[in-house]
């Protein structure tokens, strides 16, 4: 009896950028650095996707300023992605951005068999709308609960508490510190973090190992065990970027 006429397929891995495009991002070249960092990370991300054919890496991006809107709305295969520059201007509707992502993570359109999505929130300031309501909407969605959530703070004015709430609390485990927002103090460290998120994290999320579910006796260790940060990023004193934000 021949093999049946069924569709076998690799599993989609949705990678979403949530980019702060408020007016302050125009200062000190932060917007330019973010555009450049994402654009430069794409070849590496595509290479990781090629190396992990069991996953189909699909990228989307949300920009938020006065309002939140899709910058890349259609889930786009990373190898087909052409990054258009984001523009800075306005305030920081971060809560609205989270609601936009929450709607996109509903099933449908999300596929039941997708891999846990990766959400990367990048911000240099404080939300000017109802962040809590946005986060609540997001975390009500099962796919958001399953997601790998990372946050990158640009400069010293970023609201670390808000970013920590976005990524959630993860207790320290043996040999690892609790997970914290990544703090980029210049274009170099931002590029390294973006590179790490788009390659190492995508690689880990592409072929996730099954793991033990959370119990009262064993709290969850994150949806996907995250790879180590690159050494130069682990130690901010190694950072020799040209301009400190």
């Amino acid at each position: 009896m021949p093999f049946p006429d069924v569709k076998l397929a690799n599993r989609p891995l949705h990678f979403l950028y949530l980019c702060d495009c408020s007016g302050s991002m125009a200062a000190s070249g932060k917007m330019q650095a973010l555009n450049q960092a994402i654009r430069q990370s794409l070849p590496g991300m595509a290479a990781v996707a090629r190396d992990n054919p069991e996953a189909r890496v699909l990228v989307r991006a949300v920009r938020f300023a006065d309002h939140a809107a899709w910058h890349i709305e259609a889930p786009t295969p990373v190898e087909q992605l052409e990054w258009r520059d984001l523009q800075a201007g306005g305030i920081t509707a971060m809560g609205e951005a989270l609601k936009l992502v929450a709607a996109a993570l509903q099933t449908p359109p999300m596929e039941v068999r997708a891999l846990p999505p990766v959400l990367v929130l990048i911000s240099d300031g404080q939300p000017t709308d109802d962040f809590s309501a946005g986060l609540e909407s997001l975390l009500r969605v099962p796919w958001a609960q399953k997601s790998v959530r990372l946050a990158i703070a640009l400069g010293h004015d970023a609201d670390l508490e808000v970013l920590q709430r976005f990524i959630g609390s993860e207790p320290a485990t043996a040999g690892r510190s609790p997970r914290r927002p990544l703090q980029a103090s210049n274009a170099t460290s931002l590029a390294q973090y973006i590179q790490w998120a788009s390659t190492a994290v995508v690689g880990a999320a592409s072929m996730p190992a099954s793991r033990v579910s959370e119990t009262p006796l064993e709290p969850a260790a994150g949806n996907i065990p995250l790879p180590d940060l690159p050494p130069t990023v682990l130690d901010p004193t190694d950072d020799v970027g040209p301009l400190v934000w």
Partner: protein
Amino acid sequence: MLCVEMCDAEGQPVMLMAVADGHGGRRYRRSEVGSRLACESALAVAGAALAEAPPGKGQGGWSRWLAQDLPEAVQRRWLEAVEAHWHNNPGDGDFEPLLYGSTLGLVVMTPRWWGHTGLGDWDLVRVEADGRARLLEEENEPTALGEATCSLCQPRAAALFARRAGLHPLSPEERDFALVLCTDGIRKSCATDGDFLTLAAWLARTGAEAAGTLPEALDRISREGSGDDVTVTIGRIGCLGEELPPPLQAQASETPPMKPSPPAAPPPSPPQRRRPAIGRAVAIGLALAAAGGGALGLVWPRTQPPQQATPTSPGLRAALAEVERLCSQPATLPLELRRRRELFVALRQGRQDPARLKAAAASDPLAALIAADLPARDLPEDKPPADPPPGARPRRPLHALGACPALLEALSRQWAESTAATPP
């Protein structure tokens, strides 16, 4: 060893099937050993219990055994086995069961009943003699988010078996069928659950006579699918597999097939009524990785919806198309609806507005259908249903959309489950 054929204390044939999937990654670096020991422990403990069971142990007793006694004994045996392995093969650091973490699925087939138990993300499919397949068991653990799953290495693992345990009596009238027990890699390799059930049916029907080709098929599933390890065991009750009926595609005459029909198969043999007999089992395990794609083409028999006027609104068109899609794949209905169980509960609790969901039918037609089927007693007070005429049977709104009985039944079942899940 994933299968054991033996005789119980009364000399009746018994078949045991087990699958296990070790967790990957550094934390569980001995999980390959752990999964092997999980299968061995389960088969040994279950086999011993069946061989020594006193006559007259009723089905209630066997149900308790599957849900409580057997899990405790299996976990105890597994913990002893992995600790012994550690002492014989010490590694860095201290011993901890976590290193050997694994799931476990177990099926017991006897001439009078069959049952299942275990924990973790394995799937169990029943395939009837005519090729129809339905998913009987999947992991529904609320804490199993992302790639997380329940594991034998958890401190109270034995207590987690009860949710996956079940006993099914067998009657002489029961038709021949097969059970396909597999790790999660097979389902995750299929684009849809319809594909998964078709594949399970094919695996069950291909059977032992083609065991030589099964490794190649499993290689393909892993390579073109999720890249995950795939393990499958197949057990048969009765004669399924000995005389293969034609594929379901060839029988589905109401709707034209999506692809050219396969070559004509031999005519089906008349159903045989006899005491269920334990068939043969095939057990294959594999671990491979790669990628690719394929094509879909399965048409299930379905109920024709009543004639409808051409719908003009996009929402109604979407809802009608959704009803047709759902009714064309009755085997996947319970699964699709179970995935929306949060919506059922939210509607029941009044946290979701049915009118808003119905208005958004074009973007989410299934949610709109569920909202339209909200039982009348749960409708918002400002929108009471119209009373049916005296003597008339109350009609559900979905009747007007041509919903098939399978869809209505699956919705009713999900509403009942959502009632149980809703706190008073």
